[in-house]
């Protein structure tokens, strides 16, 4: 069974966002469905401004490719450079070393559309 840390907020499209560090990645549920990740391909650059729900890149495994959506609106201020050489970090540590982007939220209460760990867990159970 997948685990969803309590300190994170989750989108219905399976991204997580950490309000403390402003980092985002994809949940262990999504990772489980993708299988071995072979590439994280970002379509945004540092400094770009995105809206919540915008496509910011693609995550690829051997047999599928899924879009990554911005969980919050804001400015892209950083990305995980380690993923270029070690995409398996997303599999091995989706909530820590496998983070993808750092987004500085533009609005104060921008995470209100996101789910907490309990609600997200229910959401996943429905999709399973």
């Amino acid at each position, binding site marked *: 069974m997948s685990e969803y840390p309590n300190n994170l907020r989750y989108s219905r499209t399976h991204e997580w966002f950490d309000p403390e560090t402003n980092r985002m990645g994809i949940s262990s549920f999504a990772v489980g469905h993708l299988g071995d990740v072979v590439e994280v391909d970002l379509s945004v650059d540092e400094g770009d401004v995105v809206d919540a729900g915008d496509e910011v890149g693609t995550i690829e495994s051997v047999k599928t490719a899924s879009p990554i959506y911005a969980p919050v609106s804001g400015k892209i201020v950083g990305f995980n450079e380690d993923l270029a050489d070690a995409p*398996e970090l997303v599999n091995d540590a989706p909530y820590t070393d496998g983070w993808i982007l750092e987004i500085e939220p533009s609005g104060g209460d921008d995470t209100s559309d996101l789910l907490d760990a309990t609600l997200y867990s229910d959401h996943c159970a429905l999709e399973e």
Partner: protein
Amino acid sequence: MTTHIHSGLLHREPPIFELSSPGRTGHALPAPENLDCEGLPGHFLREKAPGLPELSEVEVVRHFVRLSQWNHCIETGMYPLGSCTMKYNPKINDAMSGLAGFTATHPLQEDEFVQGSLELMYQLESALCRVSGFHSVTLQPSAGANGEFTGLALIKKAIDLRGQGARRKKVLIPDTAHGTNPASVVLNGFEPVLIVTGPEGVLLPDAVRPHLNDELAAIMVTNPNTLGIFESHLKEISELVHGAGGYVYMDGANFNAIMGKVRPADLGVDTMHFNLHKTFATPHGGGGPGAGPVGCTEELAPYLPVPRVLRTNEGRYRLVSELPNTIGRVHPFFGNFSILVRAFTYIMENGGSGLKKVTEMAVLNANYVRSLLKDTLTVSVDVDTLHEVVFTDRDLKKETHVSTMDVAKRLLDFGFHPPTVYFPLIVPGAFMVEPTETESRIEIENFVETVKTIISEARTDPEKVIGAPYRTGVGRLDETTAARKRILRWTPPQP
């Protein structure tokens, strides 16, 4: 020096570059008299010779013969890949395509010097028109996907000439479609719209109705569809789409199921591609070349690629390029010509009656497989199917954890190429069997017995199935490592 371990007659063969040794050669060209390249500026010249291997002819031939022995092919055994139509490729077709009159002819020779080729193309176009009911056919497209591009380009041209190009952009694609369909739509500047197949596995007019408006460019339907089911409402759907000002594209990949029985033009289809490498028995060549001729109605014919082959009143043939509304060219010359010769030979050997018989036997074989396996595997949709049958691993997986992929890999151990797996996408763990008409009853029964053996293994010894294959030259290959490490060419070992 590496030692290469052989296993019986199955040789381990390294990349050809590792067999190379300086100074050897496998060619017999005379030495050039004049080695300097006068007239070419020095900075236009190559600095370092390309790293081609250096071997004698014997070594080159042996290398590739050994590689060939690692392949499964139609001539080693049954190859029941659904949707791919792996039927026997008659030898006479190859011989005819190799005639010097065809292979030694320059494509820009004047019409008077290529009358035979032009006549062959004209007659092949006519034969394809006869069997499909279309007004005209172009032979240029190099493959099925290239044919899809071409057919859609004809539709786009018609819409543009009506002045509706900016608005009519939507192309309806059922969820049973080949992956090439949406990609071909985008390459024509159209937008794909997914529509859902009904519970009986066929497209219903109601799925199309909400889209009947002035944004509709076309619908793209595979018939029979990828579940092997005849789209019995297509005629009505064509009328609806035409009524809304749109066009009907039929993906002809499965035309071998209805050839001689149904003419797509009679169903209201405006344009369709043929896969000569499926329906008309030309070799697949390990991935190509195939050929994807496109047929169309009289309305779309003026937009076909140029040149067109015309027959004069005197019975001569000539190429015509000056057609004002043509979409242009999709191939620099005439398409994959040697494939056209093979397909034409096949059609002439069969005649109309033979082609119909081919269809009947293909459908008989597929239904025989279905009836022998229906209690062992789960049929995806329980309605009549034609040239292929799609099973699902839904129940097997629940019971044993053995998946379609495992069954496929285990089949390799028994000398069978597996069916198409995990397609169509709407069927969970799809296992899509198309035996084709050239398999004998005994071969089909052997295949069925083998599948049954594997399914019972899955119940008694699932790990054995999951670990397959065991008897192939290589074991299961690590695709993740291939994608992560990306070794896409040979490089010399670092000293």
